[in-house]
């Protein structure tokens, strides 16, 4: 029987989790689509709680959570399809990397020979072949992080859940891991990545889930989220020959809220970015106010969205 296509890899319905008097997650209803999704939030936001709920380590206090269409709590069969890379730095230190990944693969019901082969393949993927036969206790932080990734990948799961996977990695390893995650997404696997490092999440995916104080603050494409934040004026940085002339022109427009000068540029805040950009394009094309050399929007990125949503 062909299983129905997965619409959502994770769906939470009025999900809440509290620890005694402390609320970890507060009435969260969200659907995580297939593909690569970044899970963002400051410390104490509820990211870890959400991660633990979707990996079945915690039971919801209220509401429901489904992963790949099924409830995850007390459903070990689902772990054939899920790979989890936890944040904590914990291993069987006396085992070698290969032994460890192979042993965990065997827990997936794979035969000894296949387990060893899959483990090797996973270790090759994370570029740890040279250290595979060394004891994990002797690994550096980055190597430990990579062997953790290997155990999550080895059984080729449909859904990969990665909790701070880039921590401790050097820049080259980070780049490779980011590329690997993007490749996994392109290959049809789903990945949920939790991280504090905003620009790296941004380089992996435009699809984010932003959590703060136990609630989902925003979900979706980061640019769409940015557009939706209407009350927050857009900042546009314009480097030009005649900044003062440009400023006089901008001040005559109602949607321009403020402007300031920086070196050879003028920084404008506007409530209607689309209309503003349209006029700017006309000005640049006509050349009547001199040359316009650079136009950027410092806050059309994840950092700005994060700061605005989290700190407001």
């Amino acid at each position: 029987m062909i299983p129905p296509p997965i619409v959502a890899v994770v769906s939470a319905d009025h999900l809440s989790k509290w620890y005694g008097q402390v609320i970890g997650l507060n009435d969260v209803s969200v659907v995580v689509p297939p593909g690569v999704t970044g899970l963002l939030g400051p410390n104490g936001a509820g990211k870890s709680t959400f991660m633990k709920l979707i990996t079945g380590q915690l039971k919801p206090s209220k509401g429901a959570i489904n992963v790949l269409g099924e409830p995850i709590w007390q459903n070990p069969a689902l772990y054939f399809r899920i790979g989890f890379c936890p944040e904590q730095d914990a291993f069987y230190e006396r085992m070698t990397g290969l032994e460890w990944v192979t042993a965990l693969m065997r827990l997936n019901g794979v035969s000894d020979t296949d387990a060893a082969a899959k483990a090797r393949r996973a270790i090759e993927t994370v570029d740890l072949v040279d250290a595979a036969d060394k004891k994990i206790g002797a690994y550096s932080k980055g190597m430990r992080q990579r062997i953790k990734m290997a155990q999550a990948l080895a059984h080729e799961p449909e859904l990969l859940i990665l909790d701070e996977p880039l921590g401790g990695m050097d820049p080259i390893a980070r780049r490779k891991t980011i590329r690997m995650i993007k490749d996994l997404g392109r290959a049809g696997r789903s990945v949920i990545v939790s991280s504090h490092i905003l620009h790296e999440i941004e380089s992996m995916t435009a699809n984010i889930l932003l959590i703060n104080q136990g609630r989902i603050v925003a979900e979706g494409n980061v640019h769409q989220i940015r557009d939706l934040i209407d009350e927050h004026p857009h900042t546009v940085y314009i480097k030009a020959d005649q900044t003062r002339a440009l400023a006089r022109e901008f001040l005559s427009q109602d949607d321009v809220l403020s402007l300031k000068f920086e070196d050879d540029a003028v920084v404008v805040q506007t409530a209607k970015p689309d209309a503003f950009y349209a006029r700017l394009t006309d000005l640049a094309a006509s050349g009547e106010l001199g040359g316009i050399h650079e136009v950027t929007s410092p806050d059309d990125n994840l950092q700005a969205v994060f700061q605005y949503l989290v700190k407001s």
Partner: protein
Amino acid sequence: MRVFDLSLGQMLWSRRSVFLGILLGGPVFLAAAVRLIVEMSARGFRINGATASGSAVFGLIMWLLYIRFIIPILGVFFGTSLIADEVDDKTITYLFTRPVPRRAVLLGKYLAYVACTVLLVLPSVILVFFLIVPMGGSTIAGAFPSLVTDLGMLALGLIAYGAVFALVGTRLKRPLIVGLVFAFGWEPAVMLFPGYLKRLTVAYYLQALVNHEMPQDSAASVLLTLFHEVPSVAMSLLGLAVIVAVSLWFAGRAVENREYVLEQ
């Protein structure tokens, strides 16, 4: 079985094996020392001043070292640590995010504990047997059936104590202290009480399977001998089986329902 393999390797080839080695080598060393003392003194074995056979001295060692100390302490140590060690080491996440029921993880670890301890305790007992029994008129052939019974009894003790302390370990916050109080406080005390209380101990059923005379090394032992109520072998085996089954079942339930929140 995969969990069993993984856990057995962890148990056997860890630094804790040193502790096991000392604990189980101690009786062998003691047996060698006792034999040396007796051979040098040429008096033969004596217990409480009276001449005793090697079998009797072996029985004394069984009681004082294995039954009253080594078996319970191994049960407390390994039983309470089955899941707790993985939680402390934060490696429990890897086991509980595999397609293996949590109950099966616990069972695999428990079986590894049984295999590990039986593999180490029984040879220690056999060595003590061969060192002590041939002296003082006993023969190995004559005492061998008793050895087989003793080995079976010790294995049952490890199985039963391990199960009880596995339950303690999965349910309580400070299982070790509770385990030590149970094994070295509650059990010896309650065995002196009349009535049904003593049936809530492993020692009541286990000690009924011991075919050596209990040593009179303290007032409590004398009292125990006087008021000793011995269930039948069948009753003891049934009691131990029930204890093991019930303990493991509740321990499995605890592990399945419990949320393990690891410190970050």
